[in-house]
């Protein structure tokens, strides 16, 4: 039987509808389509997809189970490698990982198998239909503390709990999930799904202590005094970067972290929220990563008339996932590429210093750029075009140009070495410069992806097991 060369589309809300609501954009494969998509997998011998996955999910095996309509079996195979299948099926950049290695794609120049969509199907099927609860394994008597309940911490905790470790996760915020809760919006990753994955970890015996800031409430050294034998630091990305241009302190200028935290964690998108957020009007988002896409699409759903993305390079260099960019374009986000902000403009009534509009954003000055020679990163360096400045009117400006690692743990943990940018230094096993202290995720790399953080949590869990479990 000939293989269908095209990956099955996933049903999605229509752009004009979804641009005004916070419900999930992509609706997932129905069973029939999942079965057909699974049948596209050749189950080839060398399994290149597995090595393309940062947590090495046994992809051909779980897809074979789908073909047999053994969805729970497929789920069990995925969870041997991943603690957050419903999350990964949604937010992993599969097109540059497992799917980019797919034989259909590499050898036959067809669309790769829709591995991410199938993973999501399996996880959603399990969450909707399975009553199976994981049974906590017998305790091995070893205790491990995990700092931060984001993707790397949850993964590390899950892997260790499955081996019998007593794991306690300390989370600074009031809800577990890290960036999955405060950063990634509801329409891309429903919070109920994150809560369900955390619940599954708790059923495995993982304890989650919210409202504890390691580096403040407790230090890493105190965790050892409390009897933990190893500590994994997955404290995530830290302070937002700004551009250091005039006007960044005007009212209506947000970091993407603040804007998204207000909307996601504090639920400012709901009616009559307790936490305020500026909404409506014209919004300019500066930056080209996934976070910029999330901020722009959130602003649109909060009721903006017009949303721009301003990015200094071209579409080719734009770092966000292709799928997110396409979704944003379909929803009407206006991309102003090869543009760089030079100043944010604000209102000031010269007649009345008490005018309530004083100090609010009115617009942003930008200059056009062209691409010159490649820089150290290999990307062509944007160069200003003299005399090309122009103004975009705006009520809100959101800066989404990355973050710098959080200093709280470094400042309170003697002997913990960090690099020039403040990222914690680790070896290939995730071990830091301190004995039995491991780290991974954005706290090490700076802002990166959910799955790479999960991969780091996994590597550290394995190393911790070898160090203290033997």
């Amino acid at each position: 039987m000939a293989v269908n060369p095209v990956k099955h589309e996933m049903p999605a809300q229509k752009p004009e509808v979804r641009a005004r609501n916070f419900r999930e954009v992509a609706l997932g494969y129905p069973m029939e389509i999942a079965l057909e998509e699974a049948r596209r997998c050749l189950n080839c011998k060398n399994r290149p997809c597995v090595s393309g996955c940062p947590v090495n999910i046994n992809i051909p095996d779980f897809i074979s189970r789908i073909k047999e309509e053994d969805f729970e079996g497929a789920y069990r195979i995925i969870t041997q490698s991943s603690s957050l299948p419903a999350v990964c099926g949604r937010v992993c950049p599969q097109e540059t990982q497992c799917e980019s290695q797919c034989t259909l794609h590499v050898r036959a120049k067809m669309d790769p198998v829709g591995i991410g969509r199938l993973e999501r199907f399996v996880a959603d099927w399990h969450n909707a239909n399975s009553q199976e609860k994981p049974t906590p394994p017998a305790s091995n008597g070893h205790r491990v503390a995990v700092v931060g309940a984001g993707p790397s911490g949850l993964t590390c905790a899950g892997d260790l709990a499955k081996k019998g470790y007593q794991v306690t996760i300390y989370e600074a915020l009031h809800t577990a999930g890290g960036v999955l809760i405060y950063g990634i919006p509801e329409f891309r990753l429903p919070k109920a799904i994150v809560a369900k994955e955390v619940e599954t970890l708790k059923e495995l015996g993982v304890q989650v202590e919210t409202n504890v800031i390691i580096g403040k409430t407790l230090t890493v050294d105190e965790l050892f005094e409390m009897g933990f034998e190893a500590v994994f630091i997955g404290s995530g990305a830290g302070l937002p970067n700004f551009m250091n241009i005039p006007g960044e302190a005007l009212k209506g200028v947000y970091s993407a972290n603040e804007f998204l935290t207000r909307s996601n964690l504090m639920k400012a998108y709901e009616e009559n929220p307790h936490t305020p957020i500026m909404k409506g009007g014209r919004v300019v988002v500066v930056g080209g990563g996934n976070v910029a896409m999330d901020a722009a699409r959130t602003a649109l759903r909060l009721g903006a008339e017009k949303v721009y993305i301003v990015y200094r390079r071209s579409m080719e260099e734009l770092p966000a996932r292709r799928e997110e960019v396409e979704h944003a374009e379909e929803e009407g986000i206006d991309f102003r590429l090869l543009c760089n902000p030079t100043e944010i403009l604000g209102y000031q009534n010269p007649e009345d210093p008490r005018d309530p509009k004083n100090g609010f954003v009115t617009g942003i000055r930008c200059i056009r750029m062209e691409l010159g020679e490649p820089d150290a990163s290999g990307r062509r360096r944007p160069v200003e075009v003299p005399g090309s400045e122009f103004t975009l009117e705006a009520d809100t400006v959101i800066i989404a140009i990355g973050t710098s690692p959080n200093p709280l743990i470094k400042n309170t943990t003697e002997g913990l070495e960090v690099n020039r940018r403040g990222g914690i230094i680790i070896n290939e096993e995730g071990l830091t410069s301190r004995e039995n202290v491991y780290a991974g995720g954005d706290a090490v790399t700076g802002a990166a992806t959910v799955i790479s953080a999960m991969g780091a949590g996994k590597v550290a869990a394995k190393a911790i097991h070898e160090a203290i479990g033997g």
Partner: protein
Amino acid sequence: MYRIASRKVLNPSMIQLEVEAPLVARKAKPGQFIILRVNEEGERIPLTVAGTDPAAGTVKIIFQVVGATTELLKYKMEGDFLQDFVGPLGLPTHTEGIRSVCVVGGGAGCAIAMPVAEEFHRLGAEVTSIIGFRNKDLLILEDEFRSFSDELVVMTDDGSYGRHGNVTVPLKEMLEAGKHFDMIITIGPLIMMKFVVAAAKPFGVPVTVSMNPIMIDGTGMCGGCRITLVRDGQRVTKFACVDGPDFNGYEIDFDEAMSRGRMYAEYERHAYEEACNLMQKNIAG
């Protein structure tokens, strides 16, 4: 959940709570703050630690009813629970090497200034305190300040108690009379702190100000609490939650901080009115 161990009304708009939070009580130092949420839907608000009892595991906070969240908090009684309570956040007030200090507090800021005066007193420094209020009814913590201060001056804007006028009046008098302070620490409304800095400037006395900007997480993630310092002619962005809340008063861009503090003024006013209406309905119903 965090239990309220005691509740005390200090004046018509200010309430003191002792909250059971043993880990925070063990660590918190003067100058640091906590963040709390009243209920499951609540916003996160920062409040300065007004004292701790590590043995009892309680943390004292003092708040003024100014918006929707503090209006809700007002109705939490002894034995009730708060949804979330996390800390200690920020850096403690710098005390090292300071032998004589002038603590200048205004209004609700006195709740923050009091533990600072107490700490310096405990460390053996000479403490002069100047505290100011709009009127006699709003006066708080006078006894505490008196017991921690070598000299205390109480000011009211309308002259209904203590001396008539604002806090800069006695401060200037003292400085002009040649009184020496290693440090002036001022905590209160931004406009008051701005004037304290201006009053101290001709005398070259270092001034520390305690900033209380809008923030969400308080751990160095959201960036909402950013403050601009002007240092050697350069504008530098700092974050009150991890770099502060105390800053060098001579470097702060007060006008910008005042403007940013009013970002949600309109929203807050509506939310406050709604919270008040809701409470009245509940009481009437």
